[in-house]
């Protein structure tokens, strides 16, 4: 990832000497900063994102060359002694450089990039995942060939090398489903159902975000994406289809006493109307509150008592009067749900 960014910046630096110092600073800090790149279009792990990354680089190089050329041309034009260019040759400059040149370049660009828009071919045995964008979290359902539905939330695991067909919907406002390293974004629009077909190529842990402004916590609506080896993925899916581990402690009771099960399903423990995220295997997830907080007892307990602190506008009610011990116990229960 770093190397591409550097190439990108270096070319930019060559382009414009006035910005050179700035660019050097930018390169240095991005090296020192060690950007994680889990949410970057430069660190690709899917076929579409990789194709787009290459296209980006080609266009950036072309853009840099054109800008250098224009800069040189302007300097030349300003310095040229008067009368060097007569009317006829002036017309020729406009015709060739202003009209014909761009027309040719744009034709090449258009004809070569339109086919990139074609959707990957889909087959019946592709993995089907339905994702629902809601204020401000993601409901995820794996639709298995035997009609079985495996529900989870705020985390998407996909196998590498296999085509995945996402069906994207939203019950409330417009969201946009974007995993920068995997493919471009597709909007989730109430009343409509959109599809995104992807294929991951490289295992790893990445991040997706909501890209369309959707309200107060738009900035806090992300999710973890884990691309896995096919065998590991198959095993994970079998586990995910299972009900929650049998835990029977005070936490489970408190979860019920405070009415958490009114909105959150924990398969095998509680069945709720699907208002809040499914928490069946919550303990095995990588983050809390749609990619916002780490999974830890303290973070979970704080979130339960005041969700709006981390996520303004979240629909989950605050449990400010809940004693801290109770919140800790519920949090511990949730972390046991592997």
């Amino acid at each position, binding site marked *: 990832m770093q190397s591409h960014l550097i190439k990108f910046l270096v070319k930019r630096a060559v382009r414009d000497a006035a910005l050179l110092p700035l660019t050097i600073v930018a390169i240095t800090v991005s090296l020192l900063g060690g950007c994680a790149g889990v949410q970057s279009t430069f660190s690709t792990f899917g076929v579409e994102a990789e194709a787009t990354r290459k296209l980006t680089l080609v266009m950036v190089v072309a853009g840099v060359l054109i800008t250098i050329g224009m800069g040189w041309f302007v300097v030349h034009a300003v310095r040229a002694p008067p009368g060097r260019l007569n009317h006829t040759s002036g017309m020729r400059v406009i015709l060739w450089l202003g009209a014909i040149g761009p027309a040719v370049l744009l034709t090449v660009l258009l004809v070569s990039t339109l086919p990139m828009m074609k959707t990957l071919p889909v087959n019946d045995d592709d993995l089907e995942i339905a994702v629902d964008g809601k204020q401000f979290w993601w409901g995820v359902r794996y639709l298995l060939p035997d009609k079985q539905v495996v529900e989870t939330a705020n985390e998407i695991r996909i196998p590498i090398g296999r085509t995945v067909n996402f069906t994207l919907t939203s019950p409330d*406002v417009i969201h946009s489903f974007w995993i920068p390293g995997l493919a471009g974004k597709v909007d989730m629009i109430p009343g409509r159902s959109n599809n995104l077909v992807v294929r991951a190529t490289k295992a790893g842990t990445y991040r997706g975000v909501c890209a369309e402004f959707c309200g107060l916590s738009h900035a806090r609506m992300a999710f973890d994406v884990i691309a896995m080896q096919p065998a590991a993925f198959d095993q994970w899916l079998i586990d995910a289809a299972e009900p929650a581990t049998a835990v029977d402690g005070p936490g489970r009771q408190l979860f019920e006493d405070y009415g958490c099960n009114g909105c959150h399903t924990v398969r095998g423990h509680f069945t709720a109307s699907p208002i809040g995220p499914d928490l069946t295997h919550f303990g095995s997830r990588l983050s809390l509150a749609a990619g916002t907080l780490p999974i830890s007892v303290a973070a979970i307990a704080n979130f339960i008592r005041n969700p709006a602190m981390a996520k303004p506008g979240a629909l989950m009610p605050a449990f400010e009067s809940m004693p801290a011990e109770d919140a800790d116990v519920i949090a511990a229960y949730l972390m046991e749900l592997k």
Partner: protein
Amino acid sequence: MSSTATTNPDQDDPAVRAAQEERLRAAWAPPRGFFFRWTDVNNSAVGVWYTLTAFGMMLFAGVLALIIRAQLVIPNNDLVSASTFNQLFTLHGSMMMFLFAVPMFEAVSILILPQLLGTRDMPFPRLSAFGYWSFLIGGVFVAGSIFFNAAPDGGWFMYPPLTTDPSLSGIGADIWMLGLSFIEVAAIAAAIELIVGVLKCRPPGMRLNLMPLYAWYILVVAVMILFAFPPLIAGDILFELERLLDWPFFDAARGGDPLLWQHLFWIFGHPEVYIIFLPSIALFAMIVPTFARRHLLGYPWIVLAAVGTGFLSFGLWVHHMFTTGLPNISLGFFSAASEVVAIPTAVQIFAFIATLWAGRVVWSTPLLYGAGALAIFVIGGLTGVMVAIAPFDWQAHDTYFIVAHLHYVLIGGSVMPLFGGLYYYWPLYTDKKLSDRLGRIAFWLMFVGFNVGFFPMHISGLMGMPRRVYTYSDEIGLNTLNLLSTVGAYLFALGVAVVILDLCLSPRRKLAERNPWKAGTLEWLSSPKKENWGVRCVPLVESRYPIWDEPGFVQNVDEGRHFLPDAEENQRELMITTVLDAEPLQVARVGGPSIKPMLAAATLGSVFILITFHLYAAALASGLAALVVILWWLWTGTGIIPEKAEKPVGRSIVLPLYSSGPASSGWWAMFITMTADATAFLSLIFGYFFYWTVHAEFPPAAQPGLVGPGTYWPTLALVLIAAGWAATIAARETNARGRIRLARIALSVAAIATGAGALAVLAGPWLAELDPTLHVYPAIVWVLAIWVAVHAALGVIMQLYTLARSLAGRMTRVYDGDVRNIVVYHHFLALSALITCIVIGYFPRLV
């Protein structure tokens, strides 16, 4: 007209000239007094207020941006809350677009266009004043909402359902819709004025091939406004009907579709970009020849670029919707059009470069801003070509890459040229040059600050930073880039502060010479001895750069040796000429200072503001007051019968003082207004067929409240309105033949028929008991019926007004402008009744 006509001899006598000047001064004297000075309507006064107000709006919106950047300087910052942040970016974007960019172009054009065309004022000075007061009222209303924590917070494109659901968005959404709708109406008013100004108020001899390029650009932009703003106004109507009355246009659960808003918004929104960009390029087209010391090379190429961009910009809107899941082939069409539009843009840039190449370049501060703008704009244009490629846009869309792209385009393509224009035109209005030194310091601060601020955003966007986030996590590697962006933004602001300092120091500087840049176009006729009359006489123009090309031109104008050097009847007079060849047609008299435009803006503005607060009774009262004021304004200020039929204008030419029909500016204004109105109507029709397209069954299966109006009432309405239309035409014809009584009877019949038509068109959905809150089908049928009914009601008012004018002797056989103008209105009314009848009455039978 003949250009060989000799100069009137009396102009050689200084005493004669002094007497003429005295009369001109009296006719064009500005009103005085603490309050009455604000009733001025002259373009030089209104233009200055307009420009300063728009500049103030830019500073305000800029401060909002500085708060945004302060919030984003470090990750997880809590300087402002998420709610405040959402208001800040929504207001920043909305204000920069609606309260700065578009009004600024209109303001500058009102200010300089008459000078550029060697005329004394705009064709409808009171309309300019009305536009200004509307802008001020609406602008303060929208901008002020932030102080009450009530600003709109849905992003500047206000996507429903986030913004239509009252539980997710407060009164801010109404303020946005209603406040800005009001300003959009004012923008259309200004566009009408600019079109008529360019087409009909050019000086004799200024044929289309001699028109200053600025005028070409303004013509194109004003026409674009006519077609771009009405779809947004139609969208605003649907939007507010959903918010206020729960008509489900964008509610998917009841058959609505949020995407219709996106279509209507971006049919406006993309041309909008060019509406902002072209006027600034127009300033370029004035500045470059002056400092290249030669004619602009490739004049027809620039016209190609302006007209071509104007058209093509209407075929791009879906590139803002590449991620909404439309079929790839549809995206392909828009991707292709988005690429093509780069060609005219490249053409104009190379025309400027070729001009500099061919000329003798005099380096100057305005040119420095021009060069800087070009550098920034080229990068913005290239990233524009990139985002027009759909696969790239799927990544870049809604990220900081787009934020960077749009700021490169708008600051490079609009703000920097405007600053260049400020340095260039400042001496024209103050007779003092701004400081070259401060200008250059400001330029470099802005240029460096801009690039430091916005260039990193390209990278942060591609590194996964979505736009409109009030904060970002520490771990995704965006910290340094955001820090840089914030530093750059404050540097840029410092540059703007230096410009303001420069402006403040200006009164202390010494007077500059006349035409300090030694430019060749008409606006530089302006002399340091400030007079309110605009130009001493309307010149005869023989070249694109008369001051350069025609020896003695300035002196001849100063000595009143061309047209209209006098104001014998103490009237404000302009020359009206033909569209293609600027042959003199008429001397038009325009309105002087008046309080009516201000009153009209205040009463009409109140309607919008009161509706925001659901005070419907007060809004209705205010609406009636507005109607009364406007009728009073029209009755006393338009279609005035002159005391004599014609007058000599100099050079042995005699022109009529009155004209009606297509020869008059009023007829053109009506025609142009109705073109905009018809565009809004067609946008609603588009809405109907959009719903038909997305639904398998439209109209939906019959059940109570959903059954259409049938064919009887819509057909009856059509017949009645068509009868009213025919009777209005009959009134025009009989009146022209001197059968005045017959004309009055025809007008009465027309009013009755049209009024009955209004009721009949409403009777359809009313008697069918269509319930507009149930489903989008009844809602859209109701909207179309109401649209026609309201227009028919306005038509009745016009017919009765014309009848009253005839009875009062203010309209006669010869002086028949009123009836000719309302016939134009009724053509459009009949057409919309026909379309509505077919769509709501007969179309459901076909499908």
